[in-house]
């Protein structure tokens, strides 16, 4: 049984011009101790999909899903209150902007303590001990002093460490990290990532890593989901994805990596931009930018098809002998 299993998750937001489909047809499974990476351009619905899992979207959002289970518990059938309790307890999430994700009016210690109080309880003294321990394992020097620090007195990297400590407060089984290093200095990025991976290993958590960084994906993840314009276009184990990408979008993304591009020339790019709400093509959403597109691609949307560990949404997949359809 997988830790998290999501089938056909879609999210739409009401706008002045009707519903905007921010996420469409996401399928994923995460096992305990596994790392799943979700990659895609900005606006491809990565964060929205994960916030839908955490039930953090505004009530106006329309979320539809065939199956959403954590450790076999059906989240869709669960009352909102009970579902809220899983947040921070079974699943925890850390965010892109650590500085604005901490409440400026409360000390870091108080905010971590709150998570422990809600999920684990215990006396004030026990909880304080645990906060100090957590601050220590996320690598914050002088935990006793930092306990009383306000968020504005800490750097971005320090704040993200505090966020991680808060997320770990109740020993979650699954951690969702939404571009945890994007807002940080390059030197700090590597440290935070290393810390996350170390903690994931020692705690045996499942980890969903939302990222732009293909290098990080290659080094860490077991499974990779590629999203484009809200749709899941491909899912593969990491080795297969990097060596034999089936979707032309995945292939184009990989080609654009500096490490893979031929030296001395301009980097290959993907022409055009992600379609917005009003200029969605009728066929495959990637078809206007796809160098492999054929007539069928412009007319008909490909369905998401599964073949054992692989998911693919393409009429004419690359690097494949047998036809997946």
């Amino acid at each position: 049984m997988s830790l998290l299993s999501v089938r056909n998750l879609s999210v739409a937001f009401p706008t002045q011009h009707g519903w905007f489909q921010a996420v469409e047809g996401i399928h994923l499974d995460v096992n305990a101790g596994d790392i799943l990476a979700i990659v895609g351009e900005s606006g491809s619905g990565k964060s929205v999909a994960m916030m839908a899992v955490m039930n953090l979207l505004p009530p106006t959002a329309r979320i539809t899903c065939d199956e959403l289970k954590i450790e076999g518990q059906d989240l869709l059938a669960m009352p909102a209150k009970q579902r809220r309790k899983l947040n921070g307890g079974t699943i925890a999430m850390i965010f892109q902007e650590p500085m604005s994700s901490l409440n400026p009016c409360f000390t870091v210690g108080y905010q971590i303590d709150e998570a422990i109080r809600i999920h684990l309880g215990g006396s004030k003294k026990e909880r304080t001990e645990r906060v100090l321990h957590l601050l220590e394992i996320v690598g914050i020097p002088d935990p006793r002093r930092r306990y009383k620090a306000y968020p504005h007195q800490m750097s971005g990297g320090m704040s993200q460490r505090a966020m991680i400590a808060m997320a770990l407060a109740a020993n979650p089984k699954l951690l969702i990290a939404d571009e945890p290093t994007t807002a940080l200095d390059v030197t700090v990025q590597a440290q935070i990532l290393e810390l996350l991976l170390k903690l994931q290993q020692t705690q045996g958590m499942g980890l969903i890593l939302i990222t732009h960084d293909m290098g990080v994906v290659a080094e860490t993840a077991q499974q990779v989901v590629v999203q484009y314009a809200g749709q899941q276009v491909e899912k593969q184990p990491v080795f297969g994805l990097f060596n034999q990408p089936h979707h032309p979008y995945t292939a184009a993304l990989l080609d654009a990596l500096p490490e893979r591009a031929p030296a001395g020339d301009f980097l290959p790019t993907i022409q055009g931009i992600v379609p917005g709400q009003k200029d969605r093509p009728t066929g495959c959403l990637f078809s206007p930018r796809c160098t492999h597109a054929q007539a069928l691609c412009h007319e008909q949307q490909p369905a998401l098809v599964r073949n054992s560990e692989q998911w693919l949404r393409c009429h004419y997949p690359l690097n494949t002998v047998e036809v997946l359809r």
Partner: protein
Amino acid sequence: MFKFILSKIALLIPTFLGITLAAFLFVRLLPGDPVTILSGERGISDERRAEMIAQFGLDKPVIVQYFSYLKNLLQGDFGQSISTHRPVVEEFFERLPATMELAFFAILIAVLIGVPAGIIAAVKRGRWPDHVLMGSALTGYSMPIFWWGLLLIMLFSTTLGWTPVSGRLDIINYYFEPVTGFMTVDAWLSGQEGAVKSALHHLILPSVVLSTIPMAVIARQTRSAMLEVLGEDYIRTAYAKGLPTWRVIGIHALRNAMITVVTVIGLQVGTLIAGAVLTETIFSWPGVGKWMIDAISHRDYPAVQGGLLFISMLVMLVNLIVDLMYGWINPRVRDGK
């Protein structure tokens, strides 16, 4: 923190000087003068008139009058009331407790109702509770105080007979010497049974009238501050942490929203004094508002000037307290930014 307070106090000095000048000049811009009013309908002889003008020092150039007034002020002398011949300080502070009591209850009502109303409106944004609350707030804000006061007197005092029409205490049944000047406190100190109840009974309607505008402003400001805060990232964090909704809204969001709201509450104290002038007149409440109105109609220059000065000092003092509270609520200010 100490430096923070000192710098705030230093700012008060020029403000105070400006107020003395404004109070001094504006009261002299009013048509008529104290002597004309004192001489009554039949008037007095020109010699007597000149004599009285000289007695009050009004024969000297205005600038000379101003500086001699300032000189006296610096020596702590606020002058004597022209109409009662008693020191302005005495007259003012005799009536101040009545106004403070009224203002205190008014701001209490305004905060206790305005803040929750604003929170509810923000949480239920765009739905009927929001529309009802903000509609009422706009109505309250737009209502002329004297008219609103009279409407309430008509309903609750005349028609329903629930509340007294005027005054601070049922003087037929209770009597005690003022100790603090606060009727509720004095009634409690007197130990007479039912006295506190009677004082509160007299207090309720005027406080409600006086609280109306501040309540409306506080509700609207709380709503907008909450809406802003509820969209912040740390609110999402609080939900992600699994906190119950009441805790996210009532603690994480409210604490941040209060930074703005406390400032607004402080500013409302000025409005409250202006409102007190009208409310006290309607309810024959013996406070400084009513006293100021009398002083103005008598062209009692020293009383009006003194009253304005004291009231401004009070408003400045309240704002200073608010500034200090601001530092307490907002940790980012505390580090001496």
